């Protein structure tokens, strides 16, 4: 048989079929569906029986609360707040212990190097540059991740996440986008690059693009430590993890509102269209399997993200150390950049060093804070930063931070362009330079606008 004879044969069959089923008079699909469904019902009726009345239907009871119009949102917020509170409150102590340990090791490394009579730049480049950046990333990121991810995985495993999607579906529909965007958004909390990849579950290209572009408005794991540290700084003095939790929850909510607002704007302007519908099945709640939750969240998520951060942080630490220690004139390259960016930074309620930290932090959001700290200590002095008080002293006392600075930095961190990995993923997924560029520029525009408005109105109103 050749290709020709097959297609001829198929065509003949089609003609025959048209003769047998003139104008679709047999109503094949309808008949097939109704016959099959009827037969399935028949079999099920014969095979399935109920032994007495079932005990209380917990699934339904839970769903009545967790997905109700009245309690759906409050319960969602409470759960979110609980997860953040556990993370904030639980991460402090191990974080400090890790920092102490790692910086103790740094001193020993310096001692070994000086015992070896190594030149000063070796110690600077490897220990103060690469090692310190790594130590920071590990001690600041590991504890919150090790707490946040298992909590998140627990919610996922118990079947709660589809309920979040159910609750938010209406909001996203009103924003002109797909309800599944709430799922990709939730994934963004873990990692924006993963969130962007997850957008594949949205079939319509228009809605997928919107979901991809707005994904970075939810803080990813790399930004949570920054947000949590800044929130803790904000409530210094009245230092309670409760206040910090409230601020973080507020920031996250603001991110969600921004997601909706930008999605709405996009679907009314650049990406016009009608939202498509989808069927969402709420699976039964299932008892999470603790062992699996822990192994999965630690192995697949915590260590995975940490490994990525370390890969980026090591070379970044080296580059930043070089920038802070190579002098042009009487200032380092880093200081030159910071001075140049300072006017813009002031307009946005921040300063030049913060902006340059965000610029240099493009490879990964995790390293924005370490860069900032290195920038502030650009003389390369050996201050140990193992506690919030030290951070407070460095930022507030030595560099004149106010609550506005911390707030604007949090907002900028929340809203600014996604990291390089996410952008690269975006490009691979959208196959378009234009949309990748827009996915960086739109958030940047939003971040600049919001910070500008906040900073200027606070100053004009004389709140500071």
């Amino acid at each position, binding site marked *: 048989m050749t290709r020709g004879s097959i297609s001829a044969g198929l065509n003949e069959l089609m003609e025959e079929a048209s003769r047998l089923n003139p104008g679709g008079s047999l109503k094949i699909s309808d008949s097939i569906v109704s016959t099959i469904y009827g*037969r399935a019902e028949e079999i099920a009726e014969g095979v399935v029986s109920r032994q007495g009345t079932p005990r209380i239907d917990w699934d339904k009871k839970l769903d009545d609360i967790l997905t109700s119009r009245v309690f759906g949102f409050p319960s969602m917020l409470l759960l979110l707040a609980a997860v953040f509170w556990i993370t904030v409150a639980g991460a402090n102590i191990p974080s400090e212990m890790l920092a102490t340990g790692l910086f103790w090791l740094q001193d020993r490394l310096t001692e070994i190097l000086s015992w070896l009579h190594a030149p000063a730049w070796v110690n600077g480049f490897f220990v103060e540059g690469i090692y310190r950046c790594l130590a920071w990333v590990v001690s600041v990121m590991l504890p919150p991740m090790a707490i946040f991810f298992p909590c998140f995985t627990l919610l996922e495993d118990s079947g709660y996440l589809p309920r979040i999607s159910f609750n938010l579906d209406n909001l996203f529909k009103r924003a002109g986008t797909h309800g599944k965007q709430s799922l990709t958004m939730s994934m963004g909390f873990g990692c924006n690059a993963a969130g962007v990849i997850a957008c594949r579950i949205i079939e319509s290209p228009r809605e997928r693009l919107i979901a991809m572009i707005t994904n970075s408005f939810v803080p990813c794991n790399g930004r949570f430590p920054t947000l949590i540290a800044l929130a803790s700084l904000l409530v210094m003095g009245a230092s309670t993890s409760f206040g910090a939790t409230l601020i973080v929850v507020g920031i996250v909510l603001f991110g969600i509102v921004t997601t909706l607002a930008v999605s709405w704007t996009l679907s009314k302007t650049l990406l016009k269209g009608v939202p498509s519908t989808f069927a969402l099945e709420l699976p039964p709640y299932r008892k999470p399997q603790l062992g699996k939750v822990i192994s999965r969240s630690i192995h697949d998520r915590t260590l995975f993200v940490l490994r990525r951060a370390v890969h980026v942080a090591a070379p970044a630490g080296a580059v930043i150390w070089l920038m802070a220690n190579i002098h042009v004139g009487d200032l380092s390259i880093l200081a030159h950049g910071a001075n140049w960016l300072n006017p813009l930074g002031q307009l946005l309620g921040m300063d030049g060093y913060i902006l340059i930290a965000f610029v240099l932090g493009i490879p990964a959001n995790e390293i924005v804070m370490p860069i900032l700290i290195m920038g502030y200590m650009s003389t390369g002095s050996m201050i140990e930063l193992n506690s919030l008080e030290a951070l407070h002293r460095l930022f507030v006392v030595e560099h004149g931070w106010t609550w506005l600075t911390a707030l604007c930095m949090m907002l900028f961190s929340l809203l600014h362009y996604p990291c390089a990995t996410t952008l690269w993923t975006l490009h691979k997924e959208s196959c378009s330079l234009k949309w990748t560029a827009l996915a960086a520029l739109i958030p940047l525009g939003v971040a600049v606008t919001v910070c500008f408005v906040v900073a200027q109105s606070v100053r004009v109103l004389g709140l500071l």
Partner: protein
Amino acid sequence: MGLTRQSCGSGAANENFGRGQTSGADYVIALAGNPNTGKSTVFNSLTGLNQHTGNWPGKTVTRAEGFYNHRGLTFKLIDLPGTYSLLANSVEEQVARDYLCFGRPDATVVVLDATCMERNLNLVLQVLEITSRVVVCVNLVDEAQRKKIVIDYQLLTAELGVPVVPTAARGGVGLDKLVEAVSGIASGRIKTKPCIVRYKEKIEAAVQVLEPKIKKLVGESFNARWLALRILDKDQSVLASVGHSLDRNNDPANGVEGAVLV
């Protein structure tokens, strides 16, 4: 997280429905089922492949593959997208349907949720229309038990005409029996008498006319009755797939003309 390149590959729409690399595998087994029936759990328990499972609606968009051994034989397990039917309303349904028809697995496991049998049986009946080499795996029996749902497995086996295995894959219950039944079907040791849904007379009459002609054209390699129904329904996507599949069979590079893919 969870959505890996493998589980949501962009190539889902233009899958190649050959049996793929069968090197090293004695039998190829397809895994079908509704979403949220624990299909991925069954897949993971059998293959041990470290694939993420969760409750994301529509998570498995493309097929994932894994291997397991049973009594010295290697079985290749292909995880089809979770679908409610095989009527090709969506890409997932088309992927699953085309694989069952043109991929010609040695056995197909249909995973059911014991707590909503009626909806799940729809899929079983549709799979049985395509292939008779089916094992029905009634999963989540622990949950059904909790909800006081009792299932008469003997009657179900008699009604469907294929082996039925109750399992609770999360706890690993019943998987040994499932593996046993699969190997029986794949090797041909177990003969099935699948329940085929009969449609109204006019449709059956038209099928009677088309069936022999289809057999003449495509040989015994495809299910002629099912193809006849699709052709009567003017399902263009099936015709395209048939043409494509036959083309590949007749390609001299693939061996003897008209040979059935092995």
